[in-house]
């Protein structure tokens, strides 16, 4: 049975008519046209679909949209600051060459954002452990780790 739910997406409350079996990833991409969130495996293994739900990193392909009723969701589209400035993680990913094909990038950045909010000063091991649910086939992960570590300080000052 279709139902109308409210989702607070990137700070804006939206009413969405959904089917109860739709995943959050489906609603974001297909209903709300927020295609920055990617889908890679639909089984919660690759992390390409990671968004923040109430601040926590979640695989939006595994989460039913109906479960997110009234909750706050942040996607890659909501990352830029009010002045249009890039998030420190986005800057660091660009400057440290942490982007190749770019398909894992939005999920990677969202997972890293949640990580930096949870562990204010992660070391390399923290980054590797916390991001191990995000797969990247292009990079060997080196430059992604470098970018996240570089974004630590800047993120702190921003918040």
């Amino acid at each position, binding site marked *: 049975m279709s139902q109308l739910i409210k989702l607070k997406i990137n700070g804006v409350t939206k009413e969405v008519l959904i089917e109860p079996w739709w995943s959050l990833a489906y609603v974001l*991409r297909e209903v709300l046209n*927020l*295609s*920055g*969130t*990617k*889908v*890679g*495996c*639909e*089984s919660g*293994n*690759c992390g*390409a679909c990671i968004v923040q739900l109430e601040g926590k990193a979640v695989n939006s392909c595994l989460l039913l949209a109906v479960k997110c009723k009234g909750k706050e969701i942040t*996607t*890659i*589209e909501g*990352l*830029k600051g009010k002045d249009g400035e*890039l998030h420190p*993680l*986005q800057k660091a*990913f*660009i*400057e440290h*060459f942490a*982007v*190749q*094909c*770019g*398909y*894992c*990038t*939005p999920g990677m*950045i969202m997972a890293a954002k949640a990580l930096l909010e949870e562990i204010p000063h992660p070391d*390399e091991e923290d*980054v*590797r*452990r916390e*991001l*191990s*649910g*995000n*797969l*990247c*086939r*292009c*990079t*060997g*992960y*080196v*430059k*992604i*780790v*470098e970018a996240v570590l570089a974004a630590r300080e800047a993120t702190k000052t921003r918040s």
Partner: protein
Amino acid sequence: MPEFSVVGKSIIRVDALEKVTGKAVFCSDIKLPGMLHAKVLRSPYPHAKIVSIDTTKANQVPGVKCILTGKDVPEKRYGSTVRDATIIARDVVRAVGEAVAAVAAESVEAADKALGLIDVKYEQLPPMFDPEEAVGTKPPVTIHPDLFNYELASSFFKTGKLLEFDRPNVMMHFKIRRGEVVKGFEISDLVVENKFTTARAQQCPLELQVSIVQPEADGSLTLWMSSTMMHPARMDFSRLFDLPLSKVRVGQPYVGGSFGRSASRGEHPITMALALKTGRPVKHVYTREEMFYRAGNRIPFTVYIKDGIKKDGTLVARELKIILGGGGIGEFTVGLVAKNCAFAAVGTYRITNFKLDSYGVYTNNPVAAGFRGFGSGEVTFAIESQMDIVAEKLGMDPVEFRRKNILREGEPNVTGEITHSTGGAGCLNKVSEWIKSDEKFSLDGAWRRGKGIALANKYTLAPSTASARVEVTKEEGIVIYHGAEEVGQGCDTIMAQIVAEEFGVQVDEVRTAPKDTLHTPFDSGAYSSRQTYWSGNAVRLACVDAKEKILDKAGEIFGVHRDEVELKEGFVYPKRVPDKKIRIAEACDSFIGGRIVGNGNFVQEFAAEDPETGQIDPELAAEGKRLNSSYAHTAKGVEVAVNIETGEVKVLRCATANDMGFPINPKICEQQAEGGLGMGIGLGIYEEVLLKEGVIMNPNFTDYRMPTFCEFPELDKVKIMFAPVPHKDGPYGAKGFSEAAMVGMEAAIANAVYSAVGVRIKDLPITAEKVLKAIKGSKEIY
């Protein structure tokens, strides 16, 4: 070496901003008004006759617009060597996962529901899974009884000796003969024979395979696909559907990773057939499981290698027999890989007596296709494991043994090509220096440490074609049209750097036009690590052409001879009066239409091999003509820890040195080098597509293990080095190396495992089970 201002510098990637903001458009992001969704019904059997297909019930599902079976689509076949693939199976299925019917519906759910209601009756046929059985002259099963009636792809029309009438399951037999291999073994002091195998693996691009087709009012088709080679693909599609080339248009958004699989035509023709039939746009997105069945797979290799060596370490003779276990259809590339894998044995060592036979064979396993390296990694695993085995038997240092036999500039390789731009020795030196260093690791008592190296090359193929166009206008600035698809390798940035260098401007003053066959000049596309060399040359030539025209025009403007005009840093001016300088774009404005167009075509004559001997004409070779356009060279070094109680292998640190001729963007080269190491660790230790009676046991990311953050060594344990030797025909000396970046890693790991625990694993991947079993079986106690 001339001074450059843009090439050779780590300019920020031109695609990075779009990608970090989620704005980059991939095929899966495209939606069209009125779009239908496609789903494909696949064979559950490895080998079966299709007795009947009943779509009555499926057609009644609300929202279903069209169901196609083999008889509803053109009968023509496609493939890059033997044209063996039908759009949808007809009469017989030869692999689990082969398309049997396709549905287009208003929603994915409706299409899925319809799939479940299509009633297919099969009569199972005896399957054959073992490539070694399949390759023989009396195989139990002949998978394509009509093989000898199939067409050959255009590039093989002339030489066309890939099939052999006495081997009915062989889609390609490639041969190299040089010297007298039998005599070579006779005069050797030591003869060493081994057999190696590599596993079926998955390319695992993060993006799922997608195609979207829009039928246009004039009967033409516009296709967007998450594959590469838009121009050659377009030619195949036009032939398949009997449409003039002008009626097939292919657009190419960003591709979310290729790793070899996107050079295949895949099932894009199915989406085209559905769009033609319904008159509506159709989108087809694979599931991850379908990616495992139908979007590639690294072909499993069996490599027999026999070497004859003199006491002093001279490699006198080498014989290789290589068997590639393809699937029920060659898909697009198995035949090509069967040929091109041979070059791994060509580009590195000097061997007087050489014999190679490689066979691409059909089995009833799921389709396999090109994987990064196109067979180089697989053959290199055998060769570089063998080099260590031989060195030990000779009592020689493995680095010294390699160094002694390495091809030098100007020497003929085993196909008669004259070696040029060979950085192998430099790579080997750098890695062997690195590996001597010692690092402390805290490991408990069950772990043993070992080090290993490998040396390798990866060819970039020829012949090939690349064209590009650069347009300069006052309003738009510099816009570049090139056909190298951006799959993550960074080619859009490389091309923009070349343009910026040629015009003396900044990279952000150059824009790249979206890739679309409608306006992008012909380019063979992104495969074979060819973009920097081929597309890069075309782009540079387009700039040269535009600059000539600009100089002519500027001469008119300034009233001086064109030779008196200087073009520098984005400006033109009379050499004697630099103050009169005007921007290039302003000079272009005075052209008719306000536009200067520069065209570049890069064509390089190549020397085709003799199909019986693999040799190129010695006269052509002496003129510098080659079989391949270039070879990238690489060395890998690995330190592993092996747990003698569990068999687990862990990469503690690794290094690579690469010869890419000239690093146009050093950071992008680092990206490729690091990614290559990562993928090599996966293929070396973890990755295998497991089959049981032709069914994939692990077609998902839960059960198929590719490396995560945790399987790759820490930042300070990874060393990336460059050992570039410029190529005379490459742009600024550059050649592609994105596949070489990975090649050799599996062998380096195997050699390191041997040095740690004394067991030689000859079958990839080097899993804990295999290592433990080998340790328990070995007599020595560690």
